[in-house]
């Protein structure tokens, strides 16, 4: 296999094929893309589907089709070795202005070059990976920002509240649910369970909002340390190094007077 892949790459780059000489976007489309997406850009339906490019909302982002052409997507092969930057730009511009699409912005060969990677070498086998930007000059375990490229599903989860930790205590008391750290761990476990139900995991969390009630033990201020102690058991660990973006708020109260912590998260996962 290894040699087959390498040599096919060699073949694609060295053998001159009459049809691919032109840099014209329509020409590239008619001699390659059309084999699956069809002459009218309507795609096709068999045991599976070739998506229609005609009026495809995903083409609104000009970089998304570039990434897909370069790296392929599921069953679709990568064309980064068969097509140079000019041809990728040309065919994307053709598709975005044909079949009823009329996007005004154009992709340039330079745009393609950037997405291809600095050295033009094959990088990832799949379209656009999620980018997690760390905090500059800090090891505090949250992200400065996260970028979710096209091709990802975004999942919004409701806020999760703690479970009872000590049932011998009055059910609406802080004692029943424990301190901020105990409640944080309980809440994050609940989130982990919910994610699992969706075939997701903590590593897919990209955004978190934390609502803390002032801790009576801390003169009514939030127990930020307690939150961090629980949080770092789930994020930035050796097993689960991924970090989310995060905001923390102090609120005057939650639905149950015993609750000090409610957390909601957003997850993103590559589409199948």
């Amino acid at each position, binding site marked *: 296999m290894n040699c087959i892949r390498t040599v096919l790459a060699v073949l694609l780059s060295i053998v001159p094929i009459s049809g691919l000489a032109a840099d014209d976007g329509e020409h590239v489309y008619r001699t390659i893309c059309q084999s*699956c997406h069809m002459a009218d850009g309507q795609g096709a339906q068999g*045991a599976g589907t070739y998506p229609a490019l005609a009026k495809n909302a995903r083409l609104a982002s000009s970089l998304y089709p570039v990434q897909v052409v370069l790296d392929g997507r599921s*069953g679709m092969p990568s064309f980064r070795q068969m097509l140079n930057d000019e041809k990728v730009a040309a065919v994307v511009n053709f598709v975005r202005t044909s079949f009823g699409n009329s996007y005004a912005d154009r992709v340039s060969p330079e745009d393609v070059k950037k997405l291809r990677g600095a050295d033009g070498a094959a990088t990832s086998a799949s379209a656009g990976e999620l980018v997690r930007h760390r905090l500059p000059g800090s090891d505090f375990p949250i992200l400065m920002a996260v970028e979710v490229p096209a091709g990802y599903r975004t999942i919004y989860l409701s806020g999760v509240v703690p479970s009872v930790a000590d049932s011998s205590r009055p059910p609406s008391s802080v004692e029943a649910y424990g301190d901020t750290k105990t409640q944080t761990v309980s809440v994050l476990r609940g989130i982990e369970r919910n994610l699992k139900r969706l075939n997701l995991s903590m590593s897919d969390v990209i955004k978190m909002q934390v609502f803390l009630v002032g801790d009576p033990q801390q003169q009514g201020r939030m127990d930020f340390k307690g939150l961090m102690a629980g949080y770092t058991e789930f994020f930035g660990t050796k097993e689960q190094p991924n970090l989310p973006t995060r905001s923390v708020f102090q609120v005057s109260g939650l639905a149950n007077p015993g609750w000090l912590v409610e957390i909601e998260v957003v997850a993103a996962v590559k589409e199948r």
Partner: protein
Amino acid sequence: MEGDGAQVREIGREGAQSAPMETTASMTRRELLTLIGQVGGAGAMYSAMTSLGFAAESTYKGQVELKGAPKGKSILVLGAGLAGLVAAYELEKAGYKVQVLEYNAKAGGRCWTLRGGDTYTELGGAEQRCEFDKGLYLNPGPWRIPYHHYGVLDYCSRFGVTLEAFNQVNHNAYLHSPRAYGGKPQRYRHVQADFHGHVAELLSKAVNANALDGSLTKEDREKLLEALKSWGALDAKHRYAKSWGSSNRRGFEIPRGGGLMPAPEPSTPSDVGELLASGLWRSLEIGAELDFQSSIFQPAGGMDMIAQAFQKRVGHLIRFNAKVTEIRQDDSGVTATYVDSKRGGQAMTARGDYCVCTIPLSILSQIPMNVGRAMSEGISAVPYAEAVKVGLQFKRRFWEQDDRIYGGITYTDLAIDRIAYPNTDYGKPGKGVLLGAYMFGPAAYEFTSLAPSERVKRAVEQGAQVHPQYKQEFENGIAVGWHRVPWVHGCAGWWSDEARRKHYRNVCEIDGRIVLAGEHASLLFAWQEGAVLSALDAITRLHERIVKS
């Protein structure tokens, strides 16, 4: 299909480009192997490779005997290609209750043969009717079975599928490039004899000029000279020249006859420079590749004889025209939702305690299925390769009658890539069907993009450069671009090295109650043997798990 010639040809190309050109003082192991291969033939090379740890035995362990299936356990098999058929056959034999869902109206998947009267509708809606005469056929997918594909061969033998020899190497077929020898096709035997002869002569010169003294002892050198003389058909002075000996390889100008027929006259070898520039040597060693070595077979009457043999045995288990739209597993089993692919209508469900899913990844990656992230990411990591085949019917078997080519393959640098002649019914009067194109790479995308009739037209135009008889004798043709085949959306799962490292194991491991099988879950890219071995491995592991639980 079948990890094939186009790619193997390129291995030759790449090898040629990266081979060290300068004379080095010491011989690398690869050079030594190359030398052994050239002098001793592929057999010697293979045994040398085995002793050096390069080549491995087949992983086929013989027929599986699954014993002790728990009473009443059911298994749902998705897909009735070769992997699904093997799974269904063996699992039913083991005592499981088996049900199979298949998208197509018949069994076999890519194990497929087109005959006169068949209609084929590709993605996009173009319909072709095969107009071949009775007995003539095209295998649009796999068409050969190497001697070391024990799994496929074993089922052929058990099911009584008749095999006949597939001519991979035909010394009288052509090698052709529009840029070499004025575009005139050259006989394989000419190119091979001349290439070996010239190389042997040059290497002999190097030995005699003491250029290899650093690597070889005096005794080695004498042996090597002797070997080169025999391998290259050199004369007494170690020259490759017009002689009885060289003509015994490349053929005579005036061949040997009987009685008072003209005296035989040796032929003149081609010029070494022109030969090297032609590039035709690139196709010489295809038949030396393990996957294409002799003996290599084809089922008599078409590849789908294998599918038919399976269908006879497990056809009663198969629900045809079933397009799977969702696969869900829960604590007690697996449910597949499907619709009738012909009639549409209400969604239906099929359920089994376990599931062997052989749906190609190009399609499975679009079907919602609750397996773990590891498998699910693997399913989405494998693009499907392009390939095109064109079958052409001619009024007469002119390749036999005029060119004396009986079976085998002509290779060309034209987009059609090759012309393969029927390996059966030699010398029979009447019509014949050729494989008029079989291509990968950009040309395959371009041909697939064309309307079927245009693919056929271009195959005829290009083939006429090799066989001018095409123009007179062509009758009809049929063309299959694999990206347009509705039940696969491509020719085969094309794993990148990176994807293979990251995902292959996860694709093959059992996930809950689901296990995947098929060519895509094997290391035999585009070979039927991959489907068979993968299925046998998957059901063996699944059965072990079921028996244990």
